[in-house]
């Protein structure tokens, strides 16, 4: 590892970890509690290749006991050493991941992730899906945390509906773009927007 790279991989963490992580956690929590709403999340500057929002989420949610799967499009030595320093999280295969990061295409197939068991539905993966933009809205969402209904842009309506149909099992999604994120928990009912 070159000197510059070593120093870079350690920079860009939360400046004041307790406060920054608490703010980021609040954004993540609000996103999950209000599916489909956009939240701002800032405080960390991850290495090139992933969004600030995804970087903040990983620093907030990961530690030595959460396995991270990096999809091929985001996996890099720079990102690995940045996450190793700041979170201590181990890197694991997709089928063992607590958290998975990548673009939608790179994260597929969804079937490879843990969906929990009927005794422990929480033993499942959370997918952090990097988007280039929050695109045109194609889905109508209803369910817990949503008053009446809301609309959202999902990368693949059918796949997300399939995941939700397994409730209480399944994976949960964060969608990240620049310094914004939104979430889609497995409890949300998804219909095509008319």
């Amino acid at each position, binding site marked *: 590892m070159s000197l510059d790279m070593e120093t870079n991989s*350690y920079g860009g963490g939360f400046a004041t970890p307790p406060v920054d992580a608490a703010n980021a956690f609040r954004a993540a929590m609000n996103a999950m509690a209000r599916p489909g709403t956009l939240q701002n999340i800032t405080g960390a500057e991850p290495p090139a290749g992933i969004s600030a929002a995804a970087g903040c989420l990983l620093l907030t949610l990961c*530690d*030595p*006991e959460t396995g991270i799967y990096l999809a091929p499009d985001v996996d890099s030595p720079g990102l690995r*050493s940045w996450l*190793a*320093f700041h979170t*201590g999280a*181990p890197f694991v295969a997709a089928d063992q991941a607590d958290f998975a990061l990548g673009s939608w295409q790179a994260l597929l197939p969804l079937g490879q992730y843990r969906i929990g068991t009927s005794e422990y539905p929480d033993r499942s993966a959370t997918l952090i899906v990097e988007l280039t933009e929050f695109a045109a809205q194609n889905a109508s969402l209803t369910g817990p945390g949503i008053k009446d209904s809301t609309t959202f842009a999902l990368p693949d309506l059918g796949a997300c509906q399939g995941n939700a149909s397994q409730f209480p099992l399944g994976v949960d999604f964060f969608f990240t773009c620049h310094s914004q994120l939104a979430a889609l928990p497995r409890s949300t009912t998804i219909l095509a927007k008319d």
Partner: protein
Amino acid sequence: MYVAVKGGERAIDNAHAWLAEERRGDTSVAELSLAQIREQMSLAVNRVMAEGSLYDPDLAALAIKQSRGDLIEAIFLIRAYRTTLPRFGYSEAVDTGVMACDRRISATFKDAPGGQVLGPTFDYTHRLLDFKLAADGETPEAATAPPRMETTPHITEFLQGEDIIEREPSSDTVPGDLTREPMSFPAGRAVRLQSLARGDEGFILGMAYSTQRGYARNHAFVGELRIGKVPVEMEIPELGFAIELGEVELTECETVNQFKGSKTVPPQFTRGYGLVFGQSERKSIAMALVDRALRWEELGEDNLGAAAQDEEFVLSHSDNIQATGFLEHIKLPHYVDFQSELELVRKLRREAQELAEDMAAREAAE
């Protein structure tokens, strides 16, 4: 009529203030420093570290001071503090074979390679109160001899050569962690050992004693008992290699247990294992006996219905913080619960009385 209560804030504040004053005691007597507790009450400090499940002698000394010497209260304080610490990771398994032994004895082999080293033991003291200690200013000095700096091999290694004792298959399975996953049964030996290592010394001692008195007797000898410091290593993710983080003092006990053989295992010696933070000899021997008793199923022994063979019973009741929490909560206000009980008992009494009067009236009529 009983009603729920709230309030009492001023009384509680004042109770805390009085508690603080009582903790300090007579102010004409010098206050204890943490260093004094750490250095001169070191076995109490060790117990608080072992059962608080956090190795930090200064913190344990603080907890003992704050709890007025109530060790279970001190353990409670350490457990509460422990939960606030971010978990940096898991160490490599410590190698007790490289322990710098202060003490190392075997009850089974008098000529143990590496020697029998008594260390600072109470064993051969006369248990007579030493009134000289009541006077201040004593600075006793230990004798010395040319030090032996080589590592001391484990005694069970010699028995393993003959295959006359069961082997401990080495593995790198990731062990369950009861501080992270709720305990479920069967818990498995790794979680059992973690639970026993932090369990209440008195409870583990009582369970171990029950096996000696015949409830799932397993004929234990102390194959080896060693006390000393071992280095703790952890792999540092950002460095890509392991470094030593420091040293911990441990007490390790390996029992050698007579075993007649079973449907699945030939006659040989079996093993029980105890490992505890600090110099905690009684606890580590007791832990080894209970560990061995709990292994009945894997060794193909009969379930004799003994308490020490019952994993769920032992593990569910060994934690003194859980136990004291549930036990002591019944002294806190339960006025509403009790009121419903009271009404129920009054109603039952009324009904019983009505029934009796009814019967009496009927008898009189007949």
